[in-house]
């Protein structure tokens, strides 16, 4: 299976010693990859590095084979994302916001905007100014914006924030549906149960390190829920830290 996303050894240290340290992983076509970890673990930082918002101190990122530094536009043209909170131009309508985004994609059909608004349930509000949107509506608009260009890789940061139970269920089914069509999802969330319902693989992050990568069959096979698996991995990491250190030293 082809790698849609390759992250190699990315490191970014902020002034307060927070950041991400030597994170590497890949994601393949049609995979739903979940990023789990406590707040401040570095999940959002990883997403920002992948999308070019932050420049890492070290490491490489390739999307569909394109290096994001050498060929930024080609790499990003295959992605759609929501990083931190979904933003939009508040003085414009939902539709106009999407029109601005659509301009970057040459071969996008005109009907795509309405199509994607319908998909997230915002069609009746498409001509209303975003200023009047609730948090849930803005989240949906963010998702619509991410899916607009029919990307191969979708990066979502806490995507169910502000959605009600029904909204979350809709979201999960949309993701599953698209993943079955071959779209790769990278979803970062602190809602482990939520992720457990859709993730094929998870990466557990703690204090900037990616301490574990596991497949669904791993925790299911061991009879654990995802929460149990994650907790186990987090605890394990305190002992595993020493070993990990040695391996890193030999790699440098």
């Amino acid at each position: 299976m082809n790698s849609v996303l390759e992250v190699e050894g990315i490191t970014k240290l902020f002034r307060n010693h927070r950041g991400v340290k030597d994170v590497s992983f890949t994601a393949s076509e049609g995979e739903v990859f979940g990023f789990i970890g406590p707040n401040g673990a570095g999940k959002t930082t990883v997403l920002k590095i992948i999308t070019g918002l932050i420049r890492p101190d070290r490491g490489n990122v390739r999307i569909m084979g394109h290096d994001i530094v050498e060929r930024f536009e080609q790499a990003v043209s295959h992605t759609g994302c929501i990083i931190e909170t979904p933003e939009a131009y508040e003085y414009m309508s939902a539709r106009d916001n999407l029109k601005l985004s659509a301009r970057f994609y040459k071969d996008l059909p005109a009907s795509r905007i309405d199509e994607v608004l319908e998909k997230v349930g915002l069609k009746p509000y498409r001509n209303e100014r975003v200023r009047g949107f609730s948090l849930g509506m803005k989240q949906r608009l963010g998702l619509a914006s991410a899916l607009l260009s029919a990307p191969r890789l979708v990066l979502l940061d806490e995507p169910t924030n502000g959605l009600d139970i029904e909204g979350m269920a809709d979201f999960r089914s949309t993701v599953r549906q698209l993943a079955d069509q071959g779209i790769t999802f990278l979803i970062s969330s602190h809602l482990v149960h939520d992720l457990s319902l859709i993730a094929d693989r998870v990466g557990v992050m703690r204090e900037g390190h990616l301490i574990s990568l596991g497949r669904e069959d791993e925790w299911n096979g061991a009879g654990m829920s995802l929460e149990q698996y994650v907790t186990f991995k987090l605890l394990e990491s305190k002992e595993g830290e020493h070993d990990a250190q040695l391996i890193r030293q030999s790699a440098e």
Partner: protein
Amino acid sequence: MVIRGPGRVRSEGGRQLPSRDPGFLIHETMEDMMRKKWLSAGAVVGLGAVMLLTSGYSVMANTSGYEAYKSAFTHTKGADSMASHIVWSLSDNGTKVLSGTADMKVNHAKQAMSMTAVVDDGTRTHTMQTYRQDGKMILKSSDSEVYRVMDQAPEWQHDGKTAQMPQAAEQVMEALVGNIKDLATVETGSDGTKEAELHLSGSQIPAVVNAVGSLIASKAGSADGWNHGAAVQGHLPAGHSEWKVNLPKLTDEIKVEQIDLDAKIGKNAALENQSAEILVTGKDAAGAAHVLTLQLNAGFSGYDATTPDRVDLAGKQTEKVDNRWERNGWNRH
């Protein structure tokens, strides 16, 4: 860009994975790419800075020409004494309407001055002699035998046109005039003299100058204005025949079209010659177009070596006159 080197070790979650790198190749890191970009951007900024320095210095060098003119002008004003010969004429559509000459000798240190001014209005000439001596101002017009004498206040109060403009005002004027300075050219001749030139036309003429010039031009056509002014200056004692001034009365579309200033600066960094030509266009009440031309040429000489002429009042008719200037001071001008 790809650099050969030892294979990269991939680690995932702390476990070492088999290398996927095809045969010892390392991709250029992000940092190297960014470093190159910073260097090229920095180089561009550096190039711009170099360009700024060279062009800035050139601009300053040119402005120094303007400064040279200014210092010559200041030198002239500050000289202890000098003589000047002025020839001027005012024409309307090419016909001379008013012309005159003035020969002046000034000695600031001795507070003395002598001037002979001749005004020609096309039909008659009128000569005026002015002396400043012994603390008095003496005027004699060719129309009469009477020497009119008035007591002269110390120079500083009277010094209407030649008073020092405070430096602040000068700087404000220059700021307002802005890029006009860049239009002045100064050329140094082989004999050490300099030729300064400032030619302004049309929209180059600053608003302030244009407004003032147009106002003067519109008033100039009124004969009353001339007569009043002449009376004040003592040229025209009441009762004498009024001048016939053929200046047109401009009422419409008054505009200063052109100002040409040329100066010659001598080796001693003082003005030798200043000529000016000012064109004002406008229409009179009847709608006829007029082009008023003021031409002026002033030569300066005898720096620090001039003694004004004196007049001996013994045996001559004199008349004491109130010094209007003194009464109203600076505002009179």
